[in-house]
């Protein structure tokens, strides 16, 4: 204790000296801590908002969702016994604008039909303001509807205009501004339209087998709990095919999205801290270099190595603590800044407040990183003998730190990783990300040292400018390795993200048009098939026309084990999480590759057999002959697995993970799904022909859907790129730090060269070569490692070939070169502009 007190006292005195060399260390820590605490605070604000608003977002305490069918009387009675019930019906449909003299414009919409009780919580925002009941009421032959402004714009309608949906005419009584339960609905393919139950009945769209979701919103009676409701529902209707959601997880999609984005951004924040750590190592080495005389003096006065370590450790930790506090303050303010700037653009509810946990997390990450990166260089100071401190001007001693100190640093690093893994929603992704970052850092460092060793062994250029530039890069204590590592990691991340983005975008753009259909037609009724086939086939360019029966159903048990209890790999879990499209076929669907087993005979009508997706089967440990239990329209069907197929979803064609044998399922009410490819010139005509003749069929233009997906991809890619800029920023800070640390020796060299007759241009050329080589080298290394990482991700995860992009390559290499050169020349400006006499006067 006495020793620690002494070290603290001495450290306090030492701090009176200049700590300016730590500005970059300080800035990197502030940046990393602010990023982590800010992102985590923002995420907590959203998750708290979602939790608090769960009842409104779901419009009830629980929602029971049924596909294809309404509740039976017993089911309805059960719901009514547990509380107040409201029903909404959601489906996709075509909406037509009715205007005299004009050809009807049409658009696929997300249609929601509501009863008089909707909504239980919150209010539907309408313009002009009116009650929802009034807006949806039927008046003679015409019913009311409210529609999002996007639909009104696309169909060139205004409130008061007429819409036709199915066979019913609706008057748009108001623009739909907001729905309290909008975000719990999931992904939308078109603008939202709300109509009343009466209106829905008149559309003629409700037929057995149509793809319709019925949602029963229940506000539980006093004394009822979600758990008891769920237990009783499962006990009463074990085969009902009920999908029950509750207010505690009202918008699982949004929650998962927020959690995953948070995890990614936190990992990026950690990468920024790691990049900053490289700079911290440099700053501390340079700091100790300046402090050699003091350290030697302390030692000559009797301070031992341990005390020396503590004196400087406390100083560095003092700086780290200040930086962490500042970072935490910025992080705490971030949600409020977002609230002030973007409150009108935030789609999900958020509760902006001061949350201690995210701030504590940022602080812990910051302090542990500071320990991990500062202890190794600090520990070297204690091992250096006073004599070598005095003499070792050019070549810093290469003494390694003592083992206990390295263990302490490693422990801090392990703790950072462990906390990150514990908190990550997807630990495997976190391990891969952090492992990739660590590998990237190690590889960059190794290559940087290797390149320096090679450069040192190269014959020295005869011309002084390149020789001095090369000498600056390879001299002992040069910051080149640190810059290559730190800036290189940021650039590697950017190159990886950009290459992935390009590869995926091109995959979507280039691969689909050749093989993908032009249209998907959903909800073709059995009695329409002949007429529909004729309509489509009448188009000269129609190709690859396929019409397949489709029914929605859910896998409820695997080998007799309820799906929720079955052991399923995370990658296959999605297949049992909700309803899936099921088809039946006498012969293998076109393009199917049977990997195991045999297809049933064409005339087979025996006990249900199933052909299942090979990849999912592996995730569920299924083998031929195993049983899958499916719930279709509330009825359970037990099917035996007869074969496995390889399903390629990337072609954009019809693909079903479950194909059943005919005989039982074809008796269930179902509709058909069709796809066709036509020449681009005939697309519009086909669209109009089908939508004119079959108003009940939802027609989805693949081009539009791809554009939607691409737009979403672009937004995600832009967000990820923006996040990776954080590491670039850290890398640039390290670069600036390295340049600042070398400013004294640069000024000295420039002065001597001026004395010897070098002009400023000649000296500038030295720096241009030095920083140009450093930057280009960093860019090339980042590109190489980024390309390798992207290639691994493409092969192992995305299963698509890497699409190398020369634009990204040029941007990485030249960008790296340019920023390094720019920073280097700005840093060298002092040396170039300083007058030799002034420097010689005060050495």
């Amino acid at each position: 204790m006495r020793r620690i007190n002494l070290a603290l006292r001495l450290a306090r005195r030492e701090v009176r000296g200049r700590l300016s060399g730590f500005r970059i260390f300080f800035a990197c820590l502030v940046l990393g801590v602010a990023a982590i605490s800010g992102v985590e605070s923002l995420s907590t604000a959203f998750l708290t908002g979602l939790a608090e608003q769960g009842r409104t977002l779901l419009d009830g305490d629980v929602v029971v969702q049924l596909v294809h069918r309404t509740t039976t009387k017993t089911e309805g009675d059960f719901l009514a016994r547990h509380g107040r019930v409201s029903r909404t019906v959601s489906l996709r449909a075509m909406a037509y604008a009715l205007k005299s003299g004009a050809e009807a414009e049409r658009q696929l919409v997300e249609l929601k039909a509501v009863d008089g009780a909707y909504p239980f919580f919150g209010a539907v925002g309408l313009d002009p303001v009116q009650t929802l009941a009034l807006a949806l009421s039927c008046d003679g032959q015409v019913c009311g509807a409210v529609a999002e402004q996007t639909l009104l714009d696309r169909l060139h309608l205004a409130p008061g205009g007429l819409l036709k949906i199915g066979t019913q005419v609706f008057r748009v009584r108001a623009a739909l501004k907001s729905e309290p339960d909008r975000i719990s609905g999931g992904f939308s393919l078109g603008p939202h339209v709300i109509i009343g139950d009466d209106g829905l009945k008149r559309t003629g769209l409700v037929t057995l087998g149509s793809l319709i979701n019925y949602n029963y919103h229940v506000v539980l009676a006093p004394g009822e709990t979600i758990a008891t409701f769920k237990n009783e529902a499962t006990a009463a209707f074990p085969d009902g095919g009920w999908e029950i959601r509750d207010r505690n997880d009202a918008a699982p999609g949004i929650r998962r999205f927020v959690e995953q984005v948070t995890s990614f951004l936190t990992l990026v924040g950690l990468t920024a801290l790691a990049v900053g750590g490289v700079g911290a190592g440099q700053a501390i080495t340079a700091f100790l270099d300046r402090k050699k005389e003091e350290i030697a003096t302390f030692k000559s006065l009797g301070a031992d190595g341990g005390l020396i370590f503590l004196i400087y450790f406390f100083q560095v930790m003092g700086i780290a603590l200040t930086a962490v506090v500042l970072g935490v303050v910025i992080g705490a303010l971030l949600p409020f800044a977002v609230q002030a700037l973007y409150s009108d653009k935030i789609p999900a509810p958020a509760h902006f407040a001061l949350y201690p946990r995210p701030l504590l997390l940022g602080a812990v990450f910051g302090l542990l990183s500071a320990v991990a990166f500062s202890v190794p260089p600090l520990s070297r100071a204690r091992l250096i003998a006073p004599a070598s401190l005095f003499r070792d001007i050019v070549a810093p001693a290469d003494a390694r730190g003592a083992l206990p100190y390295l263990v302490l640093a490693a422990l801090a690093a392990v703790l950072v990783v462990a906390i990150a893994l514990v908190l990550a929603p997807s630990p495997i992704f976190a391990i891969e990300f952090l492992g990739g970052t660590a590998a990237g850092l190690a590889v960059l460092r190794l290559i940087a040292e290797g390149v320096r060793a090679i450069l040192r062994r190269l014959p020295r250029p005869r011309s002084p400018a390149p020789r001095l530039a090369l000498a600056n890069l390879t001299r002992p204590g040069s910051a080149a390795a640190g810059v290559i590592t730190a800036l290189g990691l940021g650039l590697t991340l950017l190159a990886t993200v950009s290459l992935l983005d390009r590869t995926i975008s091109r995959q979507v753009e280039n691969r689909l048009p050749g093989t993908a259909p032009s249209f998907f037609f959903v909800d073709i009724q059995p009695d329409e098939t002949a007429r529909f086939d004729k309509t489509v086939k009448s188009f000269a360019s129609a190709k690859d026309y396929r019409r397949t029966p489709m029914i929605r159903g859910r896998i409820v048990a695997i080998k007799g084990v309820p799906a929720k209890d079955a052991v399923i790999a995370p990658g296959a879990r999605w297949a049992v999480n909700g309803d899936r499209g099921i088809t039946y076929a006498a012969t293998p669907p076109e393009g199917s590759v049977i990997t195991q087993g045999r297809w049933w005979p064409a005339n087979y009508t025996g006990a249900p057999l199933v052909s299942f997706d090979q990849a999912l089967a592996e995730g569920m440990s299924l083998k031929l002959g195993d049983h899958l239990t499916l719930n279709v329209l509330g009825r359970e069907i037990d099917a035996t697995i007869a074969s496995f197929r390889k399903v390629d979803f990337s072609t954009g064609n019809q693909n079903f993970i479950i194909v059943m044998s005919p005989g039982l399922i074809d008796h269930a009410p179902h509709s058909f799904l069709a796809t066709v490819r036509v020449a681009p010139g005939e697309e519009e005509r086909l669209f109009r022909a089908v939508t004119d003749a079959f108003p009940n069929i939802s027609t989805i233009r693949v081009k539009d859907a791809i554009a939607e997906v691409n737009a979403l991809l672009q937004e995600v890619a832009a967000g990820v790129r923006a996040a990776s800029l954080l590491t670039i920023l850290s890398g640039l800070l390290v670069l600036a730090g390295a340049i600042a640390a070398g400013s004294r020796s640069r000024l000295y060299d420039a002065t001597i060269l001026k004395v010897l007759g070098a002009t400023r241009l000649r000296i500038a050329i030295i720096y241009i070569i030095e920083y140009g080589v450093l930057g280009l080298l960093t860019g090339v290394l980042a590109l190489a490692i980024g390309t390798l990482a992207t290639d691994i991700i493409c092969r192992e995860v995305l299963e698509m070939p890497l699409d190398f992009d020369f634009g990204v390559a040029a941007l990485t290499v030249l960008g790296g070169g340019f920023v390094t050169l720019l920073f280097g020349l700005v840093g060298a400006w002092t040396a170039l502009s300083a007058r030799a006499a002034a420097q010689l006067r005060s050495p």
Partner: protein
Amino acid sequence: MHNSALAINLEDVTLTLSSLAGPVSILAGVSLRVASGETVALLGPSGSGKSSLLMVAAGLETVTAGRIRIAGTDITSMGEDGLARFRRNHVGIVFQSFHLIQTMTALENVAVPLELAGVQDAFARAAAELEAVGLSARLDHYPGQLSGGEQQRVALARAIAPRPAVLFADEPTGNLDGQTGADIADLLFALHERTNATLFLVTHEESLAKRCGRIVRLNDGRIVADERSA
């Protein structure tokens, strides 16, 4: 003395530098003429302006007023880069603190001014210069690997390598112990003998000054004595 035969010609040179406490007069109307091949020692107490006078004469400092001609060239109004080019061809400087480039070997340090002057066989000549100062075994050593005396020898070889008209030396033995200092002084005068460069030596050591043909004494920025040595 004819102007063209003058290696150094200072006319009424004034140097005033600014400081936080206001302008400080460093040199106050110094006039000095040094003939080619002459050896001149500039003596004076600390703060008398010796080093400033050397810097002004070597084109490292721009004067406030007055006129400077070195080796027949008026450098008074030359810009920074013009002065650098002038030094490259006409001036060699040796410093008290050696001022070698730490990232270059001894050979490279000596070759730099020759390379800047565009000399083709810069390295061969640099090696010869180092051999002449007794460092042929230290060509590939970095300054950090050399003793103080050896570093000053490299600095001397570097200063004399381009065969300057004038060799300026600012306290060249100031950072060295007695014997090493004496060896460097011997070397300095031997190089002067060999190249016949004008030697302008700033020192506060009377014994070293007496080895020069002429001693100029400076006090408070003014020349207070100008005498021939015995």
